[in-house]
């Protein structure tokens, strides 16, 4: 079932949580709502679930207006940030809840409920905790039970609020890969909220980047990372270096060095802001071209698959660069050495004419 959000506005007191938001989730997609806290992403999720009402705008399920539908009638699976498991019920009863509250005429028999619950527990690989209480489970286990509970009523849409927010880093990584595989098996239309860009880029088919109640960009993880629509998206999705460049006589200057900047239009501009991701630098011992910047190595962190290097240019500009281990072992630089930095590519640029 597709979800369409049309010009939705939500105001709490004098705080505009959502400001004329529109977006769409196609059937079977896994979409991430990504943004800093206070960007309105959770509010949007709750509005879709029917837990909040809009002040303006519509929510459409499969093209049909859902305004008149209450939360209990929307057939939406919702996984809460802090799981919201029923603390006085055992895991089995938690998962069975949605089936047991169905009207008598459509409610399955206790035996069918039992089969369904065990099937779901098997799906989340936790059959063996059926007789435990939520407080006897670890965070990751609780999260998966919350998911099983939401799936029990066969929802057409799955909404997850910061699904991995309160887990530690290792469990978080495992669970998000698990969620991706899980979605690939079930193909249920899913929308999840996160403030962690790594999580969104790794798990989602498409990412909706939100800020201050507005949608900044919608796109595949690749699109939003490599072709950000604006400076906010650029900054939010990863580290970036900002350079102010002057343009004189068709040449681009950074400090006193004239620089070759790939993709930068030199004509008709006075200056430009150039945004460069750490991996877009090349570091060499000899100037690669006449226009390489001379810089001193300040700090090297070689732990991990990439080597992080902090440099300072002659003009006093600090640069955060990342190169592969391979490249690092080739150039063999050390702290405080003089090197040359050139740009392989840039991510984003703003012009002043």
């Amino acid at each position, binding site marked *: 079932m597709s979800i369409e959000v049309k010009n939705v506005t939500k105001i709490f007191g004098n705080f505009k949580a959502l400001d004329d938001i529109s977006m769409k989730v196609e059937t079977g997609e896994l979409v991430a709502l990504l943004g800093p806290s206070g960007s309105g992403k959770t509010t949007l999720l709750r509005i879709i679930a029917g837990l909040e009402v809009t002040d303006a705008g519509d929510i459409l399920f499969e093209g049909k207006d859902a305004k008149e539908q209450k939360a209990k009638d*929307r057939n939406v699976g919702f996984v809460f940030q802090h799981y919201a498991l*029923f603390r006085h019920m055992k895991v089995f009863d938690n998962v069975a809840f949605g089936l047991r509250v169905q009207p008598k005429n459509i409610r399955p028999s206790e035996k069918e409920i039992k089969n369904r619950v065990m099937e779901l527990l098997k799906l989340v690989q936790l059959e063996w905790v059926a007789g435990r209480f939520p*407080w006897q489970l670890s*965070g990751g286990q609780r999260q998966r039970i919350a998911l099983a509970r939401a799936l029990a009523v066969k929802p057409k849409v799955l909404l997850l609020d910061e699904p991995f927010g309160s887990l530690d880093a290792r469990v978080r990584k495992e669970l998000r890969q698990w969620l991706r595989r899980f979605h690939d098996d079930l193909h249920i239309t899913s929308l999840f909220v996160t403030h962690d860009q790594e999580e969104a880029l790794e798990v989602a088919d498409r990412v909706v980047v939100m800020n201050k109640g507005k949608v900044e960009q919608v796109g595949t993880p690749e699109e939003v990372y490599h072709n950000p629509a604006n400076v906010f998206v650029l900054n939010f999705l990863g580290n970036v270096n900002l350079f102010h460049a002057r343009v004189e006589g068709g040449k681009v200057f950074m400090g006193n060095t004239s620089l070759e900047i790939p993709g930068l239009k030199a004509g008709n501009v006075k200056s430009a802001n150039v945004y460069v991701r750490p991996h877009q630098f090349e570091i060499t011992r000899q100037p690669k071209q006449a226009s390489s910047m001379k810089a001193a190595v300040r700090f090297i962190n070689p732990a991990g698959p990439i080597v992080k290097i902090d440099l300072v240019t002659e003009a006093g500009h600090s640069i955060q660069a990342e190169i592969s281990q391979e490249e690092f072992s080739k150039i063999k630089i050390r702290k405080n050495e003089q090197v040359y930095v050139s740009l392989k590519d840039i991510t984003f640029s703003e012009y002043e004419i």
Partner: protein
Amino acid sequence: MFPPLKRNSGSENPGPHKIQSESKLVKWLLIGLALGYIAIFLIMPLACVFMTAFSKGLGTYVKAISEPDALAAIRLTLITAVIAVPLNMIFGIAASWAIAKFNFKGKSILLTFIDLPLSVSPVISGLIFVLLFGSQGFFGPWLIGHGIRMMFTPAAIILTTIFVTFPMVARELIPVMKAQGNDEEEAAMTLGASGFQTFWRVTLPNIKWGLLYGIILCNARAMGEFGAVSVVSGHIRGLTNTLPLHIEILYNEYHFAAAFAAASLLAMLAIVTLVVKSFIDAGIKRNLQLTWTGPEEKV
């Protein structure tokens, strides 16, 4: 020797090797002070009540609590509690639900009103009812005109008791409900539960210990209330005397053994209340454990 002190902070004990900076002397001094205080102001009076009650033998004791006036007083006390407690339970749940789970204008005014019976002297609570239902009061003449007499009847006693005990359940439930938040109710709703199902299957089980606690306190107050009831009762023997009023009359007539015999019934109620309360405390502790979220260790 006293058993080692259990810390109030509960079951998440800080470990067996907690460093205590106070010296042993200070510790035992404080414990001794507290126990001495309890002995003088609680245990001794309680023992006194029972000793005086039985001072003229078991026969007098049994006679004192089985004479018709005493039985009538016991009956009225029980009837009052049976009516006042359930009503205030329903009101308490409704009020705390509204206050804890919703935002609305006038919420703080409602909270103040709920606290009102606790902040005024019981005598004044009684006088309010005289002002309302007495023959010179607001509704009094109208009621008397329609052949209904309110003052000096069991009805007045029950109404006054309801007023006095009205905050007991709500005050216990509001913090419990606030602490639990709305998450589980919202989860129930997204799973297709109706409002009633949500209340019955999710909210009520979660507040049951707080509710029981409130009911116990409400009941103790309803049965033991003296001041407010005294004002509206009229002290008609066998008709409008509750147990506390009965005790006072006996005492004023120098029937000490009989007065204390009746008093021992109320004292026993207090003891039963304390025992039930300690069971409920254990339940609340268990309930707290259900909300425990510890460090995540394994997937």
